[in-house]
Structure formats: C-alpha cells, structure tokens
C-alpha cells in the first residue's frame, strides 16, 4: 500500500515534466486552492496535478492536517503557507521544488515537559501516562503533575492516559524544547477500578509505578460503615493489608505495626491515622484526591518508617468553577466548598466533617447501659477540617498551602452495683454489694500543615520546596475498680486502678524534592530534608484516682533533629528497567547521633509482551517508635524518639512480583516477600512504672514473609478483584516479653481472602459487594489460673504461658453498597446517594474478649465466677449517605 502510494506520487511528479517535454507548453506559475481544513498530502497532489513542479515523499506528508486560506498564489507562496508548522521545508532544485524535513530539527532530540491536569477543575493529575505513539518511550507525571519526555524532532503524536479520564491524543511538531501543559477530560463512563500497573494503562512507566492507586471514585462506590466513605476501607481489601476487626487498630502492611507505616498528607508525615480507634480514618473522601499505597519497591524519597507507605494527596480545589457539596452519612455531616479565587490561577478547597451522631450519643448510651443494669454515659465528639489553597506563581510555578486539623474526644463512664442477699444456715442474713466502675477518657488531635512551592526549572528539571508542620497530641486516662462490700459488717474489698497517658509529638520541617531527566527513559530524583521534633511522652499508673496525678512535666520534652538526603536513578538498559536509590539519615538526639544509609533497588522488565517481572530490595530506618499499650490501638499509644538507649529500628525487605495480563482488562499478579525487622521497641510486660517505663522498654526483632495472589478486572460492567494472602509475622524480644521466646505478631493473619465486585447497573449506578476473610488475631488469652505469686493483689492470677498463643475466631464480613449519581442534563445540581448493608450476615467479629467477675448466691454463699464477653463493633446495619453538589453543569460525557 505504501509502495503503491509512493509510485502514484512519483508518477504525479513525473507526469508534468514528461508533458513539458512532449508539448513544450509553458508551465503555469499561479495555482488556485480552495479554503478549509485539508490533508497536506491531498493539497500537494492537487498542486502537482495542476502543473506545479513539486516532488515529495508521501510518508513525510501523510496524516498532516493543515488549514488552507484559499485563493490564487504562486508556488513558493503556497509552500510557505502550507508547510508552516509542519516541520517541512522546500528547496528549489533542477527538477523543481522538493519538499523535505527541516534538517534543523530532523534527527535531533528535544524535551517536552509540562503539567497534566484535569480540564474541568484544573487539578494536577498524578501518575498520568504520557507516551509517544511512534515509539515505546513514555513517562508519567510525578506527584505534582509534572512530566518530562524526550522526543525526536519533527512531527510526533502523544497519547496521554489517566484512570477515569478520556485518553487524549495530540499531534504536534517537535522543533524545540517545549512546555506543553495537558488537560484531560474526566470520563465517568465505566471508570476503571484500581490500579495495579499494567502495560495497557501505563506503558513502560509501569515498571516504575510500584504503588497501588486508590482513587476517590472507587472509594465512593465501595461505601463504608454507616455510609461513611473511607479510603482505608478499600486499602484493607488489598492483599497484604490488614487491620483488627472491622478496621480497629489502623492499617497494617505485610506484618508491620501500624506505627511503622509512613503516612504522608501532602508530603507531611501524619502521626495519628484514625478516628474512633480505627473505625474511620482521618481522610475524608471529600478532601482526598487519591492515595498511593506502597508495600515494596519504595522510591528513595520515602523514608523514616519501616512498614508500608500511604501517600495521601488532597484535592487542590476547582480552578474554574465554584462547587459546594453538602452531605451526611449515618455518622457524620460533611460540607465542602471549592472554587477559583482567580479563575485559572488560584483556587481554594475547604471541607469539614462533624460526627453529628455524637450529640445524641450520650442519651442513647445512657439507655443502653441502663438496659444492662448499669449507669453512666458515653460522649464522643469528632471533627476534622481540611483547607487547601493554591496560587499560580508565574508561568512555571505554583504555591500550595494545605492544612488539616482533627480532634477526637471520647469519654465513657459506667457504674454497676448488684445487691445480693445470702442467708446463712443459722438464719443470719448477709447483704453483699458488688460495685464496679469503669471510666475512660481519651482525647487526641492532629494538626498537619504544609506550604509548598513547585517550580519547573527547565525542560528537564522540576523542584518542590516544602515547609511542614505536624502535631499529634493524645491524652488518655482510665480508672477502674471491682469491689465487693458486705454491708452488714461494713467489710470492703476492692481494687482501684488507674492510668494516664500523655503524648505529644511535633515535627517542623523544611524540604526540597527535585527531579531531573538527563536522558530518555531516565529520571533522577533527589532531595534534602531537615526536621526538628519535640516529644513529650508521659505515662503514669497507680492504685489511686487520676485526679490525684501530677500535671505532665513539660520540661521532660525530647528534641531530636533529623537530617535526610536521598537520590535515586531510574533508567533502562535494553529490556531491563531499574531504579537505584540511596537515602541517608542523620538522627541527632541530645545524647546520641545515629547515621543510617538505606539503599533501594528496583529491577523490572518483561518476560513477554503480557508477562512482567519485578524484583526489589528495600532497606528502611525508623527513628521514632510507637508504643502500643492496648490491643485496639487506642491512642494511648506513645511516640518516643530514638535516644542513647533506643536505637532506630531497621528493616530489610526482599520482594518479587510477576504480573500477567492475559486479556486487555485482566491483570493477575503474584508476589513474594521476606522482611526482617531489627531494633523494634515495645513496652515490657506488666505494669509500667512512671519512673522507669521508658528505660525498661523491651527490644526485639521481627520477621514477616508471605505470598500474595491477585486477579483484577479493571474494565467492563463487572469489575473488581479477588486476592489471597498466605503470610506469617513473628516477633522475638528480650526476656521482658514472652521470656525472650519467639511469638506470633498480633495481626499475624495466616490466610486472608478478599473479594471486591463492582457491577455497573446503569450509566450512573454501581452495586458494590465486598467480602473479606482473615485468620483470627493472635491473642494472649488466659484459660487457666494459678495462685498469685506476688505478695499482694488477688489470690489467683491468670496463667498465660505464651504471648499471643490463642487464636480468635476467623474474621469475616460481607458489605453491600449501591452508589448512584443523579443529575438532569444541564443542571447545576448533582446528587450522590449511597444505600447499603454493613455486615450483611451479622457476623460478630471480636475486637477482644473482656473477662468480668460476676457474683451469684449459691447455697447461701456469695460465689464469684468469671464471664467472657465478646466485644465487637456492630451487628448488621443499613448504611446510607447523601451528598448534594452544586456547581458547574454536568459534563457532556457524564453518565454516557
């Protein structure tokens, strides 16, 4: 075909010359063309047919569209007009005019760079793929939306794709290093669900995109408890990610503790992840753009924790239109507003959430407790607020300010007293009372702020400067006593026990992150960071009232400083893609400095067009330690820094992955990992002395390994995934924990199976079902007692011979959610409605077992026995949420 066209063109070129010789007629000097948008090849053919002495190679001019003004001109004038901006020039030779590529750009390489953003809102798009259609080279936008791509001079076709957006193809002439900002239009038709890298979605960029993307659209479709959308609900359906029952305990990735995850909110570390002990995360779906979850192959820019990474990006706010969203779930009310401050140049986003149910909780809890023969109440207040501002700063810069603030304030009191009458054989009546009291107060709040400045330094270099602030304050206390009172003789026996925790961690930092692309398919990332910390951990326990405790001593604060530098080099050698990274950290406490190097290696490539492999090694270091005191990850957890007596924790992880894409919409992955952890820190067993708890912390090691299998269908009416994880996680501490013997990690889930199904019922409606199954928690449950070896206290004490030696029942749950969006054509109102069922078959997954003394009168005597209570989150519950958005009319593609 190509040859036929070439032959035709040559004949066309030759024919006039032959005609000249044969007829000896004077050739025409003026030529007429009609106006309009036409193919260049067609126009040149018309000119040669009209007698223009013109020759060209058809492959140089094919598929080029030009605008013709129309009229009659001589040939040079027409060629000037027709070839402008095509990368072609003409020369006059002996045989007439010859059209050829411009030698000034042909064969040379130029750099295309710019930002990828949402065409409607102006939001920067992270991880959008930019590919040259003619070749294999491509790249993806970084976490600030910046991309840079090497292209040969001349005409080029770019294809830009991003999950949830219509693909964009751009034909352009590459004649110099060019700033090319790209806008993509959202595609709400069958949005693609997650989000592991695949060849069709990312091209060769998939070898470097090692995170898993969680978008707000999928989160909205999944729904959540009581209709509360939560990105972490979706994250927990991924292989290798788990938590306690129903989310309690935070997010645990590949056998690591919750406090070992790096959680970044717009690049700033967050120390408290949860509302309500982990039932809800602090990330409101209204404010979140996306979350990237990394389990292995960590880019060198991430550091400071030895677990996984949750890189959370908030939305910027619409640059072009105002939008207001109000809504409510069964738990909270939400309000968000966004819009331009100056259209196209600056915008704002503010969103807030308030747990409105809390205002009624007190009355409800009073009735609930009264039904169970107790008095007392529960109060719980929760709110969070997100603010984001951004301002264009010149042609190549943008300033962002983001702020998050949230608070949980929980108080629970419960008092119960039963009266029992026990007549003796002699007729004497003994009256017993068994008062029992529980009181807990927990208050914790995060404040996270960042001021960032992005700048495109050149066609190959991008930089981001950041000032950051992160603060977590927690205070909690409890009092409890169980007693027995023989009223007739005023004999009283009882134990009052109390504890108080106070913790503050504050981090103020300055950082620079840079990106440079020195060659095609090559990216260098580098950065510097300095953080000043302030820790104030306090722990007190006693057999007395909390009100008698002294105030926390502010002079005990610890103020370490951390300096970090990192660099990574990602490139390609033949079919081997690699990224080599190194992160250097200097942690300087007042009495000790620690210097650590953390190398990172990523190797990847294709076995075949549909089968990819990946190997990675990650070494990570963590200089801040989270001490968990309770099973439930209640924020009585204390953060403590590395000091002279506490070295940073370190971890090495080896991981491998195979990805197979048998069909366009299917991706199957299998991963293996082995992780070794050193320098872990935990409370020693038993009561913590207010004087010595920080000196008596136990040190240990851990290891985790596992296999993760996943099949994912990302397109079509039926989408989702199914995955299975086989894993083990163990800990070995010094003799102050489990007498030095190895024991299973609490969240050592041997088997985990997750199923997510999203079915597209209509253009705007999805039905989502999720089922999760996990091996039960490893738990230290006592099933026997012995005499108390201590000189005081109860006569008998529970016997636990093995830490976490008991397995709770398996944890499983089915949730359903119907998500629909309603909007009339051209209407400025959009309604999003979620209707679902949480815990469909009413599974009571235990968070923990409480053991309480209960008294009965048997044979005239008061007899005590212990009763196990299963504490669980919720029975089967309907869930409902509604959000109304008032803003720009729905886009033409909406719901198509």
């Amino acid at each position, binding site marked *: 075909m190509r040859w036929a066209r070439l032959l035709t063109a040559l004949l066309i070129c030759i024919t006039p010359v032959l005609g000249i010789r044969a007829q000896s007629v004077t050739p025409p000097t003026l030529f007429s063309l009609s106006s309009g948008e036409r193919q260049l090849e067609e126009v040149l053919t018309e000119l040669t047919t009209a007698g223009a002495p013109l020759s060209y190679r058809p492959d140089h001019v094919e598929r080029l569209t030009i605008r013709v003004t129309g009229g009659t001109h001589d040939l040079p004038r027409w060629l000037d007009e027709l070839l402008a901006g095509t990368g072609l020039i003409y020369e006059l030779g002996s045989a007439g005019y010859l059209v050829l590529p411009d030698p000034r750009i042909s064969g040379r390489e130029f750099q295309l760079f710019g930002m990828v953003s949402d065409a409607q809102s102006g939001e920067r798009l992270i991880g959008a793929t930019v590919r040259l259609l003619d070749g294999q080279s491509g790249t993806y936008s970084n976490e600030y939306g910046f991309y840079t791509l090497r292209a040969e001079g001349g005409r080029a076709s770019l294809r830009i794709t991003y999950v949830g957006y219509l693909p964009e193809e751009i034909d352009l002439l590459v004649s110099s290093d060019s700033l090319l900002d790209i806008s993509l239009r959202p595609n709400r038709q069958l949005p693609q669900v997650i989000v592991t890298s695949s060849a069709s979605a990312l091209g060769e960029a998939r070898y470097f995109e090692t995170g898993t993307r969680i978008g707000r659209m999928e989160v909205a479709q999944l729904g959540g408890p009581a209709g509360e959308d939560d990105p972490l609900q979706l994250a927990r359906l991924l292989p290798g990610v788990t938590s306690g029952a129903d989310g309690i305990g935070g997010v645990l990735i590949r056998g690591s503790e919750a406090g070992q995850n790096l959680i970044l909110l717009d690049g700033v570390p967050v120390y408290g992840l949860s509302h309500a002990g982990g039932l809800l995360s602090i990330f409101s779906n209204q404010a979140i753009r996306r979350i990237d979850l990394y389990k292995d192959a960590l880019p060198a820019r991430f550091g400071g924790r030895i677990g996984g990474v949750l890189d959370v990006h908030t939305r910027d706010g619409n640059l072009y239109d105002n939008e207001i969203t109000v809504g409510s779930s069964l738990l909270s009310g939400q309000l968000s507003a966004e819009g331009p401050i100056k259209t196209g140049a600056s915008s704002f986003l503010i969103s807030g959430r308030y747990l409105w149910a809390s205002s009624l909780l007190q009355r409800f809890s009073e009735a609930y407790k009264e039904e169970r023969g107790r008095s007392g109440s529960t109060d719980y207040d929760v709110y969070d607020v997100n603010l984001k501002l951004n301002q264009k700063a010149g042609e190549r810069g943008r300033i962002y300010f983001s702020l998050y603030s949230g608070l949980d304030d929980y108080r629970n009191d419960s008092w119960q007293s039963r009266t029992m009458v026990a007549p003796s054989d002699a007729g004497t009546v003994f009256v017993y009372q068994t008062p029992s009291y529980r009181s807990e107060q927990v208050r914790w709040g995060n404040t996270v702020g960042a001021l960032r400045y992005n700048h495109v330094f050149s066609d190959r270099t991008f930089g981001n400067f950041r000032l950051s602030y992160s603060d977590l304050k927690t205070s909690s206390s409890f009092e409890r006593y169980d007693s027995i009172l023989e009223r007739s003789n005023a004999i009283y026996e009882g134990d009052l026990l109390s504890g108080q925790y106070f913790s503050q961690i504050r981090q103020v930092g300055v950082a620079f992150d840079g990106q440079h692309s020195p060659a095609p398919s090559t990216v260098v990332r580098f950065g510097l960071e300095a953080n000043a910390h302030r820790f104030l951990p306090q722990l007190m*326990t006693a057999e007395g009232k909390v009100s008698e405790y002294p105030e926390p001593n502010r002079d005990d604060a610890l103020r370490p400083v951390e300096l970090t530098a990192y660099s990574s080099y990602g490139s390609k050698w033949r079919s081997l893609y690699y990224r080599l990274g190194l992160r250097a950290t200097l942690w300087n406490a007042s009495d000790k400095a620690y210097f650590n190097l953390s190398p990172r290696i990523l190797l990847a490539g294709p076995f075949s067009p549909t089968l990819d492999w990946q190997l990675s090694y990650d070494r990570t270091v963590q200089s801040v330690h989270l001490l968990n005191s309770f099973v439930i990850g209640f924020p009585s957890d204390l953060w403590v820094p590395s000091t002279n007596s506490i070295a940073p924790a370190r971890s090495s992880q080896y991981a491998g992955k195979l990805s197979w894409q048998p069909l366009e919409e299917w991706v199957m992955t299998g991963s293996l990992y082995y992780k070794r952890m050193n320098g872990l820190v935990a409370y020693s067993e038993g009561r913590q002395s207010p004087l010595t708890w920080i000196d008596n912390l136990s040190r240990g090691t851990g290891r985790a390994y596992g296999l993760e299998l996943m099949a994912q269908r990302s397109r079509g009416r039926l989408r989702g995934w199914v995955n299975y994880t086989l894993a083990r996680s163990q800990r070995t501490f010094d003799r102050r924990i489990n007498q030095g013997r190895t024991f299973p990690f609490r969240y050592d889930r041997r088997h985990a199976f997750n199923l997510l199904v999203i079915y597209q019922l209509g253009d705007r409606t999805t039905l989502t079902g999720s089922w999760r199954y996990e091996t039960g928690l490893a738990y230290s449950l006592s099933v026997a007692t012995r005499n108390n070896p201590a000189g005081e206290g109860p006569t008998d004490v529970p016997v636990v011979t093995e830490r976490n030696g008991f397995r709770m029942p398996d944890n499983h749950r089915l949730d359903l959610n119907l998500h629909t969006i309603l909007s009339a054509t051209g209407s400025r109102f959009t309604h999003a409605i979620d209707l679902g069922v949480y815990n469909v078959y009413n599974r009571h997954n235990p968070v923990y077992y409480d053991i309480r003394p209960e008294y009965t009168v048997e044979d005239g005597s008061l007899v005590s026995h212990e009763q196990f209570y299963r504490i669980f989150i919720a*029975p089967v519950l309907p869930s409902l949420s509604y959000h109304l958005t008032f803003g720009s009319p729905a886009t033409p593609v909406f719901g198509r």
Partner: protein
Amino acid sequence: MRKVLLGHVLRSATILGLSLSAFFSCEEPVDLDLVYPKSKLVISSSFFPDEPVVLRVSATRPRGEATTTPITNAKVTLYEGNELAEELTYDNSKENGTSGAYRTRKFVPEVGQLYTVHVSVPGFDPVTAVSSIPEPVEIRSLEVSGLSQVETGDEMVYDYLLKIDYADPEEETNYYDLRVSQLVIPFTIGPGGDTLRSTPYLKSLSSADSPELTGGSVSMLIQDKGNLDFVEFHLQSRLDPRREMLGRIVAELRTVSPEYFFYHRSLVQPGDLGGPGLEEPVIYFNNVASGLGVFAGYNSVHRDVPLPGN
C-alpha cells in the same frame, strides 16, 4: 407522607449511627469453646544461705473454678549436685511462718552449690527445677543528698536522693535486687511532757514522681551496674509528725540468681493496664520443667544511713 418517611429515616439513622458510634458498647457474653490444658504443678521457693529451704506447691486450674488449696501430698526432694540433700516435709504448724509449705528440717543451702528440687504429686506430671546461691556483694557507700521537707496537711514530706554504690564484679554478669526501706520510730508524749519512743518499724516509701508505690520498700532489679557509678533513688518519706520520727534509711542489696532476677522482674501484677482483655499479660518467668513457678537462690547484705539532721 414525605415528612413521615423522612422522620422515620432520620430516627432510624440516628439509632443506627449511635449504635455504631458507641463502638465499644457492642458486647455479648460468650462461652468460649476452649480446651483446657491439663493442670500443672506450680512451685515457689526463694532460698538463702544457712536458712532452711522452704517451698510451696499448688496447681493451675481452669478459669472460673474455685481457688485451689495448697497441695499437701507432694513428695519433694532436694539434691545438692547429684546427692540427695533431704526430702522436704510438709509444715502445717503456725510457729515459723512457713505454714502450708514444704521445708527442710536440717539441711541448709550454701553459696556456690547447685541445687535441684524434684516434686511429684499423684495425678500431676512431676516437675524439677535447678538453682544456686550467688556470692554476696558489698555495699560500698550509701549517701543521702538534696533533702527537703514540706508540711502538707497532717503529713511531713521528706524528699531526698539516695545514692548507693556497690562492688559489682566487672568480669562476670551479676543480678541484683536492691531494696530500700524507711525505718520510722513511733513516739508518744507522756503526761510529763517526756517523749516515749517505741520499737521502730518499716514504713512505705514513695517516689516523688509517682502518687503511690506499692509495698513497704522500693525495689529495683539491676543487671550488673549498668553504665552508672552508682544507683540513685528519688524518694519521699511521709510521716505524721505528731506520732512518728524519722529513723534510718535501710538498703538491702540482694545478689540473686538469674532465676530469681527474671522471675521477680516478671512478677508484677497482671491485668492492671486498662482491664482484662486489653492489656498484654505478664508471661511469668518459669524455671520449672513440666510445671510452673520458680526455684531460686539469693544472697543479701544490708546497710543503713540516717537522714541528715535526724
């Protein structure tokens, strides 16, 4: 119709939301289908040079069952090296404070010997345990500094630092239980205005950083001497100035066997952080093969010092 429906939805929503918000309020009594392990013998003995060996024997039992009574039909034998030292006899008398325990009648242990105890009881697996008594270590100095006194209500609070230095042998690993207690002299004022002193007794000490510490003395378990030149306690003595006078501060340095050290380090009250179900229980140190408990030797030296000005 719309109002009724909306009201119903809101009411339902409120109830449902609240039930979820009260996230630790969902509870139900359960009978766990547990397989109770076979009962094991529990022995307990800390022995001291030149004193009879005293040992208590009991057994574990399933949770919820009545408190066990001591086991009185055990056969308890003590070996020094490979030689039988003595069979311990059950002591039911109330004269020497060892009621309900097994004790040697003639044999007393010595420093540096290895002792093995064997206990067998019908219906239980027999158990054995091994330990020895280490050499004593001298207290070099005992010093009180930074004394201040404050009157709060009816109490006089003496606040001070107590520094203790001891001759820890550097070439070997040693374990210590350092105990500090406060002697108090009770007194009354006679009709003629005379101060009548009674027999001194030990009174609880407390720490300035803690509202209350349990026990009559402050105890610290130490491995070697750490990196310190001396060990320091920040202490408070609380006296009723109308009835009590300060006596001497008494320090007891116990040089203990590893069994003693690790057992006592694990010997803290379980279930005292947050309540049952939430805390990590203590896994008690155990050097009893096939059973539970401890059989451990220790040595001891004392030294005392008055508070300055008293």
